[in-house]
């Protein structure tokens, strides 16, 4: 048959081209890191986050003044709308109680990072576990598993249906006022989001051909979930984590604004600063600008890095 001879030619050609490529495929993670280093958004995001973390660590030592001492108390009269803006002495001006805003910003970075990261982690970890259970039960658990999935998802739906701020307020009201409460309250709000996201992503992967292939190979279900479905379902969760870090900071600020935030006034935090400055926005808009812009830049940094990570981790986009 003439087909056979052409076939072997094509085969040889395929082998030739295969041979000229890099002889061994790079490991997925190493490859992802290489691509992360090359990507500009990742670089920018990384620099921003590094700067933020650095500030959070060394902030208290490099702050020129005490963040809590009302040193220039006699110069600011918030009830009369008299404020002091940026000047050589105080780079970012003074707040309504006569404290140095620049020092408060530097010292506040730590608290902000803590609230953002911890509450995001609470939401991510608890949500991911719920999503994993639900997704695994739904894809490979048969009829019984689908019941479990139904039940779990209805509960998360209830959580999701509650306005997030209301949920946070309720948690804060039940647990009393403290920093831990703020973190838990903000984290709890994120749980259903992560749970839904991971479950949905796992469901999509669970129906794919390679999962069918793994099942027909006779691989154990638990192993299929861990090695096949989960790794391919994580990208949207990673992106969501970076996004919710930004919202967590803002949520925490909203809680402080409602008087449910950290009651300790000796620890400045960007969100608290923003909510306090908001009252004087008409007279001194710059006072709220500094924490707002800082939050935005930080959030942007995390988002850029998250997006770049998603791209780097997606093997289909590799080239």
């Amino acid at each position, binding site marked *: 048959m003439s*087909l*056979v001879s*052409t*076939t072997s030619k*094509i*085969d040889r050609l*395929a*082998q030739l081209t*295969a*041979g000229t*490529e890099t*002889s*061994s*495929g790079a490991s*997925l993670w190493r490859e992802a890191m290489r691509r992360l280093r090359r990507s500009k958004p990742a670089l920018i995001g990384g620099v921003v986050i590094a700067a933020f973390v650095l500030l959070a660590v060394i902030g208290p030592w490099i702050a020129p003044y005490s963040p809590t001492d009302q040193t220039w108390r006699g110069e600011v009269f918030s009830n009369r709308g008299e404020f002091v803006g940026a000047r050589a002495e105080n780079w970012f001006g003074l707040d309504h109680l006569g404290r140095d805003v620049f020092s408060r910003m530097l010292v506040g970075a730590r608290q902000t990072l803590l609230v953002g990261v911890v509450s995001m982690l609470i939401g991510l970890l608890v949500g991911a576990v719920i999503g994993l259970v639900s997704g695994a039960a739904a894809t490979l658990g048969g009829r019984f598993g689908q019941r479990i999935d*139904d039940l779990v998802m*209805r509960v998360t739906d209830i959580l999701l249906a509650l306005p997030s701020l209301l949920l946070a307020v309720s948690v804060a009201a039940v647990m009393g006022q403290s920093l831990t409460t703020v973190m838990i309250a903000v984290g709890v709000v994120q749980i259903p989001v992560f749970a839904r996201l991971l479950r949905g992503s796992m469901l999509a992967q669970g129906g*794919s*051909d*390679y999962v*069918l*292939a*793994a*099942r*027909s*190979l*006779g*691989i*154990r279900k638990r*192993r299929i979930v861990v*090695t*096949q479905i989960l*790794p*391919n379902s994580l990208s949207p969760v990673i992106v969501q984590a970076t996004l919710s870090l930004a919202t967590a900071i803002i949520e925490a600020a909203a809680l402080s604004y409602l008087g449910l935030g950290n009651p300790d006034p000796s620890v400045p935090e960007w969100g608290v600063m923003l909510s306090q400055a908001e009252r004087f926005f008409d007279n001194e808009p710059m006072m709220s600008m500094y924490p707002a812009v800082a939050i935005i830049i930080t959030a942007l940094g995390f988002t850029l890095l998250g997006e770049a990570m998603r791209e780097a981790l997606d*093997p*289909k986009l*590799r080239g």
Partner: protein
Amino acid sequence: MSLLELDGVKVHFPVRKGLLFNRTVGHVYAVDGISLKVEAGQTYGLVGESGCGKTTLGRAVLRLVDVTDGSVVLDGTDVAKLPEKELRTFRRRLQMVFQDPLGSLNPRQNIESILSEGMAAHGIGADQDERRERIRDILAKVGLPSNALSRYPHEFSGGQRQRIGIARALVLEPDLIICDEPVSALDVSIQAQVINLLEELQESMGLTYLVIAHDLAVVRHISDVIGVMYLGSLVEEAPSDALYEEPLHPYTRALMSAVPVPDPEVEDRRERILLHGDLPSPANPPSGCRFHTRCPWAQPKCAEERPELTDAGGGHKVACHFTGEIKAGTLRRAGEPEPSAAPEPSAPAKTVPPQAPAPEAETPEAEASEGSSGEGKPGAKAPGAKASGEK
């Protein structure tokens, strides 16, 4: 004894409604009573248009979907009733090659991992070195370079990926390989490669295949026995050559007549049976013979009684009440001219009925158009024929 015997296999998917307490409001009769036998070392081809349940049948054999009724017996073991634990180990003997070569490979696993995972699950090979040795062996057999091991699926071409899929099935040394549209996602030149590879492997390793496809040429080339499926059941089953020489069931005739002949003279003159209408919904199949809604020879009896698959001689099985009559020409198609009235070039043109709307493009074999359009008129194409030419 045959290697694989299906007896009355049914796969019905419940259609559920409701938020918390799901009511079953009906069933999709994806596979509705199929019996067939696959002999060891042979290839059984399963053809049919999209949505006829051939893929579901393939998955039912592996029990990737649950079998509602009937038995799937592989070498004396009924897969349909095997407990979950035994099923997992039993799956080693039944493997599958998928339609989408890229989609069926985990993008985050390299080739070595993909190929060794099955062996690890079944305890084949003492350690990774031994497995790697075996993988290299299989890679050579399917014609992949051994440096493929540490690379990822996206780094390969479509044909190479399908070879990986075949290698994955082969490493477990299965008794039966189910090929679900193994080449339909590939270029024509690559199709030939993969088909030839499958044949070579069958010869050298004594494999048995159940090939599911919609491409009649591919199925004919590779199969020993062919089964034609329509809406969840077999309508005809025959040795490959017999089926192509003399298709007996009206549906098979229509399928065959949709394949173009590479000779313009013959192509223009040959008789084409064009089916009208779409494939009925498997959730609400027609009464009696499933095909009677589209059959040009349909009789009142067809709507009432479901024909069994019966032997019409020489292992050629057909599920039709009127096989003999259609073959002898005593039963005429709707719209077919009487043999006494010689086909005048102008005569049928007047009787061309209004055209049915163009069918969905997914099923090229089943042309939906009026039965008599363009008949006996070389050159002059009726609108129906044009519609099919555009696809």
